[in-house]
């Protein structure tokens, strides 16, 4: 009888040590990526805030210099 067979991996009842190691490695990599993303996010927020503060300070100094210049002249 001519039967057509599908190529599907066979179902297994147990998990091997190599499977466990691969899973553990994948989890480790995801954890590492999440940690890196958190750090980048945090540093980005602080650097952005700092840049805003520097701009605001520069504007304040600019206005102060103009104010002093106007009152001196």
């Amino acid at each position, binding site marked *: 009888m001519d039967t057509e067979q599908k190529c599907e991996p066979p179902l297994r009842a147990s998990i091997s040590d190599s499977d466990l190691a691969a899973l553990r490695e994948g989890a480790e990599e995801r954890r590492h990526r999440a940690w890196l993303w958190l*750090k980048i996010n*945090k*540093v980005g927020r*602080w650097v*952005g*805030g700092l840049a*805003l*503060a520097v*701009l*605001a*300070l*520069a*504007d*304040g100094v*600019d*206005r102060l210099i*103009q104010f002093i*210049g*106007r009152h001196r*002249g």
Partner: protein
Amino acid sequence: MVKATFLLLRWFDRVTDRPAIAAWASVLATISALVVASVLLDREPPHRFLSFEPVAGHAGDTVIVRQRVERDLGRGCTSHSHRSAIDSRGLSIPVGQRNLSAEERTAIEAKFPGQALIQFQIPATFAPGPAVLALDIEWVCNVTQRLPWPGPIHQYRAVPFEVLQ
């Protein structure tokens, strides 16, 4: 290099995870964001052109354009203007540029309130007929306008004049 980065990150964490530092940084960042936003929204030219007196001259003549203007001197703006003249054929020739500091603008307003005079030479190659003096003014009223973005405030003004036969 990697070790140094990790050390730096650990130090950064130690500093930024202190509640007092994080709280003050948030307050500072919020105030700074408001200041920067207000500064970025400041895009109104500090100068309004109200009217002008018609002027005419022959090619090669020096003429004076008189304009009524309203100057806002409170913002301490500086200006850089490019002037070009365009004749009836569309020939465009630069006729000079001018930089004015906030102090100079204040002095001009004190001496000639509400008036702006521009003297320029009508290019000798200009054809008779209606022509235009085009002014492209760049205003710098705050520190962000010195940066490539958002850059200075641009103001354009076209003053018609007549080139006589």
